[in-house]
């Protein structure tokens, strides 16, 4: 297991600005791949952050040489898939195919990224569907509570900030074809283009096929996103988002922490939060669910720390309306106890074994591997970082974990947001 990734992943740069990370595994026939270009929401023009999302959504609606039916026919006739989606920093794609169909699938991927057909009519239909999905998301108690939390913690234009659903609908509705074409022309280019693949795959084949597709693509300036915004000052805030006719409420308690994943305190803090609510045997599930029976699901996590962003930690839970107050109080008590007394040596030891075992279990399928390798590359980490991870975890000390809790967690200043149908 030692240096598994460093030994097995073949790293290459078939074209300047395009890096490949290929992991041949023992699985037969199947290949999973993932990739990204730095042209997500944060690269959209300031006046409309949804342009990047619409551009990504249009990539499967035809190319210069193939209409959308030909595109879908090529993929579906071999049982393959390519899906595009937009994140704050990237346009990403994931896909899978059988080994023999890789040339067909990557050739199509190249066309879709290089020469998409941005038809007015297709954009209009896509917008209609996106607005429908956004309208439906107004019923989603978890999503609405999360939007509420992020708006309290971060200022507009911060990577972790979230627009309201109505704001998104308005922006999506106003995007024009011309804006998408301009965005594509200016941002879809070589430079920060990462591609990962895992399964029954040869690195040489991948590199050859990608070179064929992108050798004539221009190389843009390799400018990493620069973050010039910070979270709002910490102040405990409360917000209830009423959504009628719901039997379960989603609740968040959260707080911005001011550091990103490259900070020296990141892993000790992550470990502290894992002990509080990282899995079923963590404190929150053991006490609030297993002992008190107040919820089906509760957990804690550290998020939004990638690409230099100052992240946040949060606790999430669902409660029946009549148990919300009791559940919230019990959760706060657990956080208080964790803050006051820290975690124990036994807990630290157990969670270290958990994380190291989970690292092995994560090697079970190609899908998870391709995503893990891509994420590492996006964060501009070397492949060795994937192998160092267990070592980093192993070296975390109890003292350091408990100091980071005191340093970053402010139990009295947690922001509370809940969405659902409230009893009162």
């Amino acid at each position, binding site marked *: 297991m030692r240096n598994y990734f460093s030994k097995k992943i073949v790293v290459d740069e078939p074209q300047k600005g395009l890096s490949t990370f290929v992991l041949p595994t023992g699985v037969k026939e199947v290949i999973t791949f993932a990739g990204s270009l730095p042209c997500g929401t944060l690269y959209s023009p300031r006046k409309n952050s949804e342009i990047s999302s619409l551009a990504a959504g249009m990539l499967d609606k035809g190319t210069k040489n193939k209409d959308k039916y030909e595109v879908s*026919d090529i993929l579906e006739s071999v049982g393959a898939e390519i899906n595009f989606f937009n994140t704050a920093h990237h346009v990403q794609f994931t896909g899978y195919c059988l080994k023999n169909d890789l040339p067909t699938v990557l050739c199509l991927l190249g066309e879709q990224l290089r020469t998409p057909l941005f038809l007015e009519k297709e954009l209009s239909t896509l917008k209609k569907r996106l607005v429908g999905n956004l309208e439906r998301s107004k019923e989603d108690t978890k999503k609405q509570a999360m939007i509420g939390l992020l708006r309290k913690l971060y200022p507009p234009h911060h990577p972790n900030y979230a627009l309201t659903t109505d704001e998104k609908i308005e922006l999506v509705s106003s995007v024009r074809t011309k804006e998408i074409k301009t965005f594509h022309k200016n941002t879809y280019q070589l430079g920060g283009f990462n591609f990962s693949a895992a399964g029954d795959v040869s690195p040489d084949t991948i590199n050859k096929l990608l070179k064929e597709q992108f050798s004539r693509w221009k190389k843009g300036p390799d400018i990493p996103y620069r973050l010039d915004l910070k979270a709002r000052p910490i102040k405990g805030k409360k917000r209830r988002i009423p959504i009628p006719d719901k039997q379960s409420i989603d609740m968040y308690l959260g707080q911005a922490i001011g550091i990103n994943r490259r900070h020296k305190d990141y892993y000790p803090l992550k470990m502290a939060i894992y002990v509080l609510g990282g899995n079923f045997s963590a404190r929150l599930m053991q006490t609030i669910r297993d002992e008190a029976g*107040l919820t089906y699901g509760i957990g804690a996590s550290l998020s939004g720390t990638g690409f230099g962003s100052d992240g946040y930690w949060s606790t999430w839970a669902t409660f029946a309306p009549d148990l919300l107050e009791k559940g919230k109080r019990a959760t706060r008590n657990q956080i208080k106890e964790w803050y006051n007394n820290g975690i124990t040596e036994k807990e630290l030891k157990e969670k270290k074994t958990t994380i190291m075992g989970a690292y092995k279990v994560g090697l079970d399928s190609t899908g998870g591997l391709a995503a893990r390798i891509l994420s590492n590359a996006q964060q501009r980490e070397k492949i060795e970082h994937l192998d160092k991870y267990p070592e980093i975890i192993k070296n975390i000390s109890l003292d350091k974990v408990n100091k980071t809790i005191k340093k970053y967690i402010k139990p009295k200043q947690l922001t509370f947001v809940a969405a659902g149908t409230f009893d009162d």
Partner: protein
Amino acid sequence: MSPKNKKKEPGFKFIKASGGIEEYCLSSNGLRVLTLEEHSAPVTTFMVTYHVGSRNEAIGHTGATHLLEHLMFKGSKKFNKEKNTAIWSELQNIGAQINATTWNDRTNYFEVVPSEHLERAIAIEADRMRNAFLKDEDRQPEMTVVRNEFERGENSPFDVLDKNIWATAYQAHPYHHSTIGWRSDIENVSTKRLQEFYNTYYWPNNATATVIGDFEKKRTLALIKKYFGVHGRSQHTIPKMYTEEPAQEGPRRIMIKRVGQTGIVGIGYKTPEGLNQDTYALQALGKILTEGKSSRLYKRIVDPGLATSLFMYDFPFKDCGMFISYVFLTPETDHNSVEEIVLEEYRQIIKEGIKQKELDRAKAQIKANVAFSRDGSYAVASALNEALAIGDWTFYSTFMDHIIKVSRKDIQRVAEKYLIEDQNTTGWFIPQN
């Protein structure tokens, strides 16, 4: 060593092999064991499937199988909090993925473990097979946990609509109720009832253990014998569920009106038991109708913006099933027009059949799905679990062989046989302001 000798394992009777998977029976108590060695990653999945699900429940204790599944994590003779060997922590502390699921025909408990910890997973599953505590003081807090799971489901208009379509289509057969059960049953079922349920169905002769991944067969079978061999077979015959659904005489329709944003249309047709030969053609028909952007309903409904998305499912179950299509409408679309398009497409297939190209595409999609169902030890175990549920695990290993044989005529025939408008059940979710 000849292949015949290879399959001789002390204490086990070799039953059969298919697609690289071998089936054994632990002679002392009737426990079935499936094995598939695959050493590409240092990971093994161990799973125990009990051949009991919500189809074995009746009025008053719907949801009992699922509630019992939850209680099975509360401790057993050797693995419990008092001894500091609680099931969750014993397994999660070694990095295992661990969980259990309940559905119509089966309940399964599984662990995906770093290979060196396989013995721990076997020991835990063996102990809780017959030595689970199932205490009343554990049921009360777990009941509210499960009730919150129910409440979360009720938050989703789709979940509510799906539950109601099944409840309308099936009136006598226990597929009438969903696995989570009715709220009042979750709240009121007694611990005694759950214990009775456990003592009726949780026996080695009503279970199958599956081991997939990085393990050594001889040693693993010896471990299974060591831990599960301590249990005898049940002294009683495992009860059979005998209720049959009477023929449906006319279309049925339901409407759910709740505060919401957008509408949903669901149209379901009864299908035969999973092991029926028509299942294969129905699976291909489902792909032709809704899988991918070239599918018939996607082109007619999603493409022009009448819906945000659609999908269908036709899970093969032990007794009978439902071929259901769901369409999630865009804000201005009316339910009627979409329902009519779906029915039109069904009528057209019944009348004119399908093109060879459509069938080829469906088969290619299924071929890729089958290949990916072998991507990782958990994926294989999970697919086998569903095949075990319907009564024959080789449904998984031979599935593609049957799909290859499906013809255009088969598709038209099953469409005509099962997509009968007089016997469908239609549900609308109508959002209220």
